[in-house]
C-alpha cells in the first residue's frame, strides 16, 4: 500500500517542463545565432576603427569611444548631424503614423461593427492590404515616376491650372517629407487595420450590445469600451510601427536618389548608416550609429509605453 502511494506520487511529479524548454529551444537558437550574436558584434565593433580602403581592410583597431565622439561632435554650423537625421526620421514617421492610426482605427471599428455589418469586407480588406504586398522600393519608384517633373501628376496640375510650371516635388522639404509619409501611410494602414480588427474582435461582443441597449452613442462606445480593451494590442501596433518607422530607409532613399535631398532633410538614420556601409564597409562607424539608434529607440519606446499605459490600475 505504502509503496503504491509513493509510486503514484512519483508518477504525479513527472515534470513536463523540460519539453517546454525543448520546444522553445529552436527559437532561442535562431535568435542567438542570427540576432543576438550580430547585435553583440555590432556593439563590439563600434569601438573599433574597421573599414576598407579600396580592396584593403584597415583595422580592426581598438579606438575606444572615438566613433561616438565623431558622431556627436557638432559640425561647423553647430548642428549634430546624427540628431538632425534622427529628427528627420521621427518627423516623417509621425506625419505618416498619425493618419495611419486614425484611419486604421476607424476602419477597424467599421469593419467589426455588427450594427453596420458592411458587405464585401473581405475584398476591402484585401484591397487596403495590397500596397503592403508590393515591395517598398517598387512602390517608391512608382511614386518617383508619378511625381517627377515630367510625370502625370505635374501634367495634371499644369493642365488644371493649379500650377503654371512643373513643380519638383523632390526638391522641396515639405512635399518631399509629405510624399515619404504618404507612401508609408499607404503601405502600412492596411496592416494596422487588420491587427486592430483582430484586437477588437477579441473583445466580448456582449459588452458592445449592453452598451448599445443602454443607449450609448457610437463615440461613447469607442472611447469607453473599444479603446480601453484594445489598449494592449494598440500599444503593440504603435510601438512596432514606431520601431519600423525609425528604421525607415527604402522609401526616402529612392525618392531622394540616395542624397536625402533637399539639404539632407529627408535623410533618415538608416540612410545615414547605409552611407557608411557602402564601398568602405565602415563597420566601426556603422556600429556606433546602430548603437545610438538602438538607445534612442529604446528610450522612445519606454516613453510611449509609459504615456499610453499610465492609467493602468
Amino acid at each position, binding site marked *: 500500500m505504502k509503496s503504491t502511494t509513493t509510486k503514484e506520487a512519483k508518477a504525479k511529479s513527472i515534470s513536463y517542463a523540460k519539453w517546454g524548454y525543448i520546444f522553445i529551444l529552436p527559437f532561442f537558437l535562431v535568435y542567438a545565432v542570427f540576432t543576438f550574436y550580430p547585435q553583440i558584434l555590432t556593439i563590439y565593433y563600434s569601438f573599433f576603427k574597421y573599414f576598407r580602403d579600396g580592396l584593403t581592410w584597415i583595422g580592426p583597431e581598438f579606438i575606444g569611444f572615438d566613433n561616438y565622439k565623431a558622431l556627436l561632435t557638432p559640425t561647423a554650423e553647430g548642428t549634430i548631424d546624427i540628431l538632425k537625421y534622427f529628427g528627420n526620421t521621427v518627423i516623417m514617421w509621425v506625419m505618416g503614423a498619425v493618419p495611419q492610426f486614425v484611419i486604421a482605427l476607424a476602419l477597424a471599428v467599421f469593419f467589426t461593427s455588427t450594427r453596420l455589418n458592411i458587405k464585401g469586407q473581405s475584398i476591402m480588406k484585401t484591397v487596403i492590404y495590397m500596397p503592403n504586398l508590393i515591395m517598398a522600393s517598387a512602390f517608391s519608384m512608382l511614386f518617383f515616376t508619378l511625381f517627377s517633373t515630367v510625370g502625370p501628376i505635374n501634367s495634371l496640375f499644369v493642365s488644371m491650372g493649379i500650377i503654371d510650371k512643373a513643380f519638383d516635388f523632390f*526638391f522641396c522639404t515639405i512635399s518631399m517629407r509629405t510624399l515619404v509619409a504618404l507612401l508609408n501611410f499607404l503601405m502600412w494602414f492596411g496592416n494596422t487595420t487588420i491587427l486592430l480588427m483582430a484586437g477588437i474582435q477579441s473583445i466580448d461582443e456582449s459588452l458592445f450590445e449592453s452598451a448599445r441597449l443602454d443607449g450609448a452613442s457610437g463615440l461613447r462606445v469607442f472611447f469607453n469600451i473599444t479603446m480601453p480593451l484594445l489598449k494592449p494590442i494598440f500599444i503593440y501596433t504603435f510601438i512596432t510601427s514606431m520601431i519600423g518607422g525609425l528604421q525607415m530607409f527604402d522609401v526616402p532613399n529612392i525618392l531622394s536618389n540616395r542624397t536625402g535631398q533637399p539639404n539632407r532633410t529627408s535623410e533618415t538614420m538608416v540612410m545615414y548608416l547605409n552611407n557608411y556601409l*557602402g564601398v568602405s564597409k565602415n563597420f566601426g562607424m556603422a556600429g556606433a550609429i546602430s548603437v545610438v539608434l538602438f538607445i534612442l529607440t529604446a528610450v522612445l519606446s519606454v516613453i510611449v509605453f509609459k504615456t499610453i499605459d499610465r492609467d493602468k490600475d
Partner: protein
Amino acid sequence: MKMKKLMSGLLVATMILSMVFVGCGKEEKVEQGGKTFHIMAWNEEFKGFFEKYYAEKHDDGEYYVGDAKVVWTIVPNEGSAYQDALDAALLKNKDASAEDKVDMFLAEADYIAKYTQSDLTMDVKSIGVTDFANAYQYTIDAASDTNGVVKGVSFQCCPAGVVYRRSIALDVLGTDDPDEVQEKLNSWDKFNAVAAEAKAKGYYMIGSDSEAYRVFSNNTTSPWVDKDGNLQIDASIQAWMDQAELYAQNEYTLVGDIWGEAKSQQMLDTGKTMCFFGPAWYYNFCMPNAMDTCSGDWGLIEGPQAYFWGGTWMLAATYTDNEAEVAGVMNAFLNNEEICENLVSKDLQFVNNKKVNEKFASDPNYGNAFLGGQNDTALFVELAKNIKFENHTQYDQACNEGIQQYFREYLMGTVTKEQALENFRKYIKEKFPNVNVDK
C-alpha cells in the same frame, strides 16, 4: 592494445595535419578548364556585343565560350552598388566554388584604379594578351598599375564631342553643317553666346545642368583626392559649377539628372534641346528616344573643348579557372578585325583598334545614318589622338556622382552654394573614412 590504438590514432592525425599544411604551403595554381565562365558587369551593353559576335549559342538556349557556359552577374553602377557586389565577389574569389568564381569583370574609368592596383586582378600579358599595337594609349594607361603592368583591356575608345540636333541648329545658327556648326561653337564663350540665342528662340542649349560635366571633370589638373588623402575641388570642377549656375539661372538648360526622364524626353522629336555631350557609346546606348523618333536629324562636332568620357575595360580576376577563355575574349575585342568592324558598322561604336577605325574614317562611302550620313569615325580618330588619362583615383565615381547631385540642390535654390558643397563633403566623408574633407 590501448597503446596501439592511440598510436595509430596519432599517426592518422599527423598524416592529416601534414597533408593540410602541405596543401597550405604550396603555391596554388588554379586548375583551368572551368565549366562556368562568370562575368560581372554593370549593364547589358557589353553583354549584347559579346553574345552577338563572340559567344556561341547552344541548343539549350545558353551562351558558351568553348565548353564553358557563360553566366552574368549584372549590378547597376549607381551609388557604387556594382563596386560593392564586385568587391565582395573578388575578395572571396580564391575560395569560391568553380561555378561562383568570377573569371572576368568589367570596370569603368571612374574606379578602374581600385582594381588595377590590387592583387585581385591579373597581368593580362601573363594570360596571353600581348598585342597592343592597335590599342589607344589612354586605354592602356588607364588599365595599368603604378608599375606599368597592364591589367585590363578596353573594347571601346571614348573620345567625345557634342551631338547636336540639326533642325534646331538650322533654326538657331542658320546651318546644320558640322564644320560650320563647329566654327560657331568652338569655344565656351561662343557656346554661351549661342545658348542665349537658342533661349531667345525657345530652345534649351543643353539637356541637363551636368550635361557637359565630363568635359570639365576629365580635363582636371589635379585628382579628386591628393596623395595625402585630402579632398580637393579642381579649378576645372569650379568652372563646371560656374557654367551649371549660368545655364540654370538663364534657363539655358533643364535642371535635372543627366540620366533622368526629363532629359531623356528632350531627345524625342518633340524635344527642344540642341546639344548633348557624349562619345560614340552615348548615342548608341543612351539616345534610343532619338533613334526611334528623329534618327538622321543629328550631327557630331568636337565642341568647345576636347574631352573623353568612359570606356569599358575587361579585367581578368585572379583565381579564374578560365584564363584562356578570358584572354580569348580580350584578344577578340581588341584585335579581331571582323568583330571590330562589325562593332563600328553595325553598332556605331568607336573601337579600341586604330587600324579598323582608320579604315572607316578614310572610307568615303561610310557614314552614320543616325548622324545624317556624317562620318563620325573620322572625327573620333582625330579626337582620340589627344586623350590623356590623368588625375584619376578610386574615389572618382562617388565624387563625380556626389558633386552633381548635391550641387543641383543649389541650382534648384533649396540651399546656398556653401551648404551644397558642405553636404557633398559630408557625403564623401561618410563614403570614405580615410579621406580628409576639411577645407
